């Protein structure tokens, strides 16, 4: 199902596994098999070391102090911004705003650009496969502004109905906020086409890259998206760090998000002038340690090579899809032509939760439930799915174990 024209030199998964200490642990007396990567990935030792090194070697608040520690911490923190800029091919480093995560990045746009630009009767388009974090901020904004939220429906195979999207677009459309890769289905959406169509109507486009950045090459200039949001923790980096990319002219015109230190130029009791980009949007002391360690995570994946990682994940996805399809009563939810390594499925007459508990009993971590996409689950008429999502350290042997675990669970539950 996944086609790779050029097969890159394959990745040494066993060498990679040794770099992830948590993979050595046992769960319920068995070696951990971690298939909940779409929720968060595990962290390699060097990322953990980067956190420890910061706190043991040069912990200091950034941008202000003139002492050595502050200079070192500031340099390391800002180096992450440069790496992120290269990672998503942004035009300038000022376009990289650090946040707490994808959710905060989206909310930042809703609260600043949204409040400034959305008026009564305006329309915002999202899709039926959005995560709650790309639904609720827009619902809140629409409620406040009397604007209208429109939803692109999905096909049975889990792809966007592009003809319906085109019908939804009009001069009323002010924003299209769309997920790049679905966390619940794995579908990779044709964002470039979506952006092009939106721009023709003069609408601004935000891409939710929470799931896509770990798998796909991201070039925000080539995509021509106006905003792009993603998180560190799904990219082998620490939790609590996210990125908002925005086109410079948009970010410059936007009001600040939060007020406080760092985001100001000059403060008097009469008036405050704001700092330049990107600091205008980074009020208060940021998450310094985790942001610094995020660079280590990005360098780690860059060293392995994204094409190699992708080839490995595609192989795992294809292997798992073929194997699991053979199980009685198993139905895959999300069979788009282009997918990231997310495999969502349901089993006839069996509640996903029972499967989740029984797999955990064998040391296998999967996600069960609605995956924060309740509206999408309603479209498919199911309470939730079982989701296995694969990362660089997963193996086909682990997928064999998953299939065995499922077979046994089906047997005792039927």
């Amino acid at each position: 199902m996944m086609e790779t024209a050029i097969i890159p030199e394959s990745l040494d998964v066993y060498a990679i596994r040794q770099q992830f200490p948590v993979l050595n642990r046992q769960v319920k007396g068995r070696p951990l098999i971690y298939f909940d990567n779409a929720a968060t990935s595990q962290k390699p030792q060097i990322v953990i070391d980067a956190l420890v090194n910061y706190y043991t070697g040069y912990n200091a608040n950034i941008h202000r102090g003139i002492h050595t520690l502050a200079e070192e911490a500031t340099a390391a923190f800002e180096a992450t911004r440069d790496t992120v800029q290269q990672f998503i091919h942004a035009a300038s480093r000022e376009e990289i705003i650090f946040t707490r995560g994808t959710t905060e990045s989206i909310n930042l746009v809703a609260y600043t650009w949204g409040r400034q630009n959305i008026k009564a009767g305006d329309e915002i388009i999202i899709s039926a496969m959005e995560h709650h974090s790309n639904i609720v901020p827009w619902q809140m904004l629409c409620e406040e502004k009397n604007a209208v939220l429109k939803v692109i429906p999905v096909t049975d195979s889990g792809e966007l109905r592009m003809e319906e999207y085109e019908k939804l677009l009009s001069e009323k459309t002010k924003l299209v906020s769309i997920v790049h890769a679905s966390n619940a289905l794995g579908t990779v959406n044709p964002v470039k086409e979506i952006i092009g169509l939106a721009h023709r109507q003069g609408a601004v486009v935000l891409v939710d890259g929470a799931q896509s950045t770990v798998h796909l090459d991201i070039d925000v200039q080539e995509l021509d998206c106006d905003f792009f949001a993603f998180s560190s923790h799904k990219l082998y980096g620490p939790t609590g760090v996210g990125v908002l990319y925005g086109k410079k002219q948009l970010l410059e015109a936007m009001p600040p998000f939060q007020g406080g230190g760092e985001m100001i130029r000059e403060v008097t009791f009469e008036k405050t002038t704001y700092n330049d980009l990107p600091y205008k949007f980074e009020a208060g002391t940021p998450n310094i340690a985790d942001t610094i360690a995020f660079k280590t995570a990005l360098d780690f994946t860059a060293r392995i090579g994204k094409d190699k990682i992708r080839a490995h994940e595609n192989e795992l996805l294809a292997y798992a899809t073929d194997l699991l399809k053979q199980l009685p009563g198993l139905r895959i939810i999300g069979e788009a032509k282009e997918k990231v390594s997310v495999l969502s499925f349901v089993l006839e007459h069996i509640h996903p939760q029972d499967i989740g508990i029984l797999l955990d009993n064998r040391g296998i971590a999967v996600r069960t439930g609605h995956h924060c996409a309740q509206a999408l689950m309603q479209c498919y008429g199911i309470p939730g799915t079982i989701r296995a999502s694969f990362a660089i350290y997963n193996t086909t042997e682990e997928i064999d174990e998953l299939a065995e675990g499922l077979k046994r669970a089906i047997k005792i539950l039927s």
Partner: protein
Amino acid sequence: MEPKQTIAETEQEIIDEFALFDSWDDKYEYIIDLGKKLPPLDEQYKTDENKVRGCQSTVWLTADYRDGKIFFKAESDAMIVKGLISMLIRVLSGHTPDEILAADLGFIQKIGMTTHLAQTRSNGLLSMVKQMKNYALAFKVKNPITS
């Protein structure tokens, strides 16, 4: 189902039964078996009002009050939860509101099912216990003499 014994005695009975299993697989197989044997709840009771909200599975719980005692009936769309419900009913059903309110239900921890009480599981076991105690409290308030 007239209980011939106290809540604590039934709890001990379950603890003794689980002591026979040496693996988690066996424990869960037993719980699933209990779930399969739980009589289905009449459709009329599967109302929104009777829903005990958990994150992933749905539990319906209803109670009758007869001769000063509470009798529970429940069902879930998930099998392991059904098994857990079956045990709770076995322990609590047929007792007075006061007995139910005083029950500490330590057997859940002793048979190693504490994870099901954890917030992360959100499978409704905790809410179910709360709901059963709420019924006991409500019947006690409504029928002050009998309790």
